[in-house]
């Protein structure tokens, strides 16, 4: 980018300014946006190279893991986070669930004409803080602007690269009959935090999104020496959808114990109110772990000792089943299927 003498250009108005088409045109306005906002907050040695891509040191051994995640959340700001930190956490988690140590992130922004620069700055600062806390730098990026009405403020796509040490690879195909199923904490917090804002549910104590990067929790779980077969973050579609995916991939059945499922009472109440089931509500800072039954208690202890796993629980077990059903013993004493989510989870009316 051309260096312009600072005094010749009016600085970006981060208080009252708005995104306009020029910010995506490739010209000086775009260079200014990158310099005064993105580079300023996200800055690191790779981003500072200023090229179209980042030149990165190759990891010594192991295999690369790459994952990408698009973020279109509405509202952009919610209790416990915003689209910025969410986009960092989401991709770090996708990389980490493969057994990899996340190394670098790339970020793509689609901005809508008229979007407030103050909001954009808030989002970028939040991304910077999340990346810094996780120790995973954003090393390259791109920005486009679409006309007013053709976006929803801002969409962010992040791509992550990580490296997995030989033998540490994880996959949803590795669950085995007899394994134990664990979750790292309460279910449905993120989804209900969003729903509560969208539906203006005025709860006395707001539901806080659980958005968090889970790679440090995974490192602690790995350090316990437990034989972990599968890790996955139950995001969209919630725990039910994630377990059905794994059951299908591993060609096994699962049996959950409803009484063992950790659910925050406020989330439970909000779900009840809206006619939703916490099993199908999104999480952004929780993981499902499937491990050898003999190691379940050891793994549980390691998870509970970590700040992101204090409410971890053993929630069920894996068994042989040609139909790959995920079932649950209800708190009531009956049995039922925990099925795939069909369509969107729509509230019941009556």
């Amino acid at each position, binding site marked *: 980018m051309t260096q312009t003498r600072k005094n010749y250009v009016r600085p970006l108005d981060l208080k009252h300014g708005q995104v306009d088409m020029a910010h995506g045109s490739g010209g000086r306005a775009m260079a200014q946006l990158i310099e005064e906002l993105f580079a300023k907050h996200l800055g690191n040695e790779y981003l500072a190279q200023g090229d179209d891509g980042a030149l990165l040191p190759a990891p010594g051994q192991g295999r690369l893991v790459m994952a990408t995640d698009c973020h279109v959340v509405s509202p952009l700001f919610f209790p416990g986070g915003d689209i910025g930190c969410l986009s960092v956490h989401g991709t770090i988690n996708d990389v980490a669930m493969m057994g990899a140590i996340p190394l670098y992130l790339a970020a793509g922004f689609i901005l809508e004409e008229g979007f407030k620069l103050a909001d954009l700055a808030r989002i970028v600062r939040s991304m910077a803080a999340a990346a810094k806390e996780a120790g995973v730098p954003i090393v390259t990026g791109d920005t486009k602007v679409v006309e007013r009405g053709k976006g929803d403020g801002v969409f962010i796509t992040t791509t992550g690269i990580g490296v997995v040490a030989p033998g540490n690879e994880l996959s949803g195909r590795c669950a085995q009959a007899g394994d134990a199923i664990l979750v790292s904490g309460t279910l449905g917090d993120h989804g209900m935090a969003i729903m509560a804002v969208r*539906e203006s549910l005025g709860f006395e104590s707001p539901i806080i999104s659980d958005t968090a990067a889970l790679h440090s929790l995974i490192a602690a779980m790995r350090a316990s020496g437990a034989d972990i077969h599968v890790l996955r973050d139950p995001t969209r579609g919630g725990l039910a959808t994630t377990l059905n995916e794994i059951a299908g991939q591993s060609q096994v059945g699962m049996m959950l114990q409803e*009484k063992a499922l950790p659910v925050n*009472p406020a989330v*439970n*109440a909000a779900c*009840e109110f*809206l006619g939703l089931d916490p099993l199908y509500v999104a999480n952004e800072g929780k993981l499902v772990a499937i491990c050898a039954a003999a190691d379940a208690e050891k793994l549980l202890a390691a998870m509970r000792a970590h700040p992101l796993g204090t409410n971890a629980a053993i929630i069920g077990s894996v068994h042989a089943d040609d*139909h790959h*059903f995920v*079932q649950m013993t*209800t*708190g*009531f*004493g*009956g*049995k*039922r*299927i925990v*099925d795939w989510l*069909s*369509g969107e989870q*729509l*509230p*019941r*009316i*009556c």
Partner: protein
Amino acid sequence: MKYIDEFRDGEVAVGLAEAIRREARPARRYHFMEFCGGHTHAISRYGVSDLLPDNVKMIHGPGCPVCVLPIGRVDQAIRLALEQGVTLCTYGDCLRVPASDGLSLLKAKARGGDIRMVYSSADAVALAQKHPDKQVVFFAIGFETTTPPTAVAIKQAAALGLKNFSVLCCHVLTPSAISSILESPEVRQWGTVPLDGFIGPAHVSTIIGSRPYEFFAEEYRKPVVIAGFEPLDVMQAIRMLIRQVNEGRAEVENEFSRAVDRNGNLKAQALVGEVFEMRKHFEWRGLNVLPYSALRIRRQFAEFDAEKRFPLDYRPVPDHKACECGAILRGVRRPQDCKLFGSVCTPENPVGSCMVSSEGACAAHYTYGRYKDV
């Protein structure tokens, strides 16, 4: 959750199950219909059937609001959105109901229809206030529970002098549906649907009270127990029904006394009476055209009647030939008896309306209970 967890207590359930087992006479079979989709959902979701002895069977009734909504009515709503360009507000459950030409409200939305999901009729009124340049239509469906809120919305719109709000009224009446089942040849003459009693509606009864069911108990000699929507409510009601059958009684009993009394909510009833009047006939999905079974908006509020405001003729549309929803809604067939169940017709791709709402018999069985079929 206080006042909810108590009604889902597994230990109490075990005790109740034991009592039911003791009281149900091994020599006879008991067939009870739970009228409401809310009960169907509770039975499936909590696995209540697993706790019942083999000679006590539950038959799923027609009380799921979207299940009885005929295709022609959904078509009307879609036409309003796509041809008249209105903002159509609907309860979430309605969005996926299959309509003509492979459409649903959800698909019509993808084609550019301005279709919004609302939680309450008041949201639709608020939308009309906010967008005076747009015609906002509330697609009002449901039994007596959802009718008073629609009446409130119409009165609110009248008080505000809104010129851009109207209601496509498809509210239906519970007693008519129960009559239609009791009058059906399968129950009355052929006996192919054995029916020993009803679990009466929960939320509907908070509005209409328990009095309207007294006619069924007396005239048709069928016991009715009004029950709440929690699983323990359902089990307690089953126990009460078994007792009535064993003692040869046919009465209206009220398990849901924490919310229902004999007269119901008189204020709500007066409001409904002020805004709505009986339709001479109305088509139900699965139950055909039933006389005096639904409501329309009174002439006094005609300006809020979408059927009067827009050119909307009603065109009845037959169901898919192989779809058994009609028979399932009348209790004649079970979901797993339908050829389409689980193959062509799934919650992702519902052919019949019973597969749409989680309260529908087919969706409930598919989602929670199909492991029993394999």
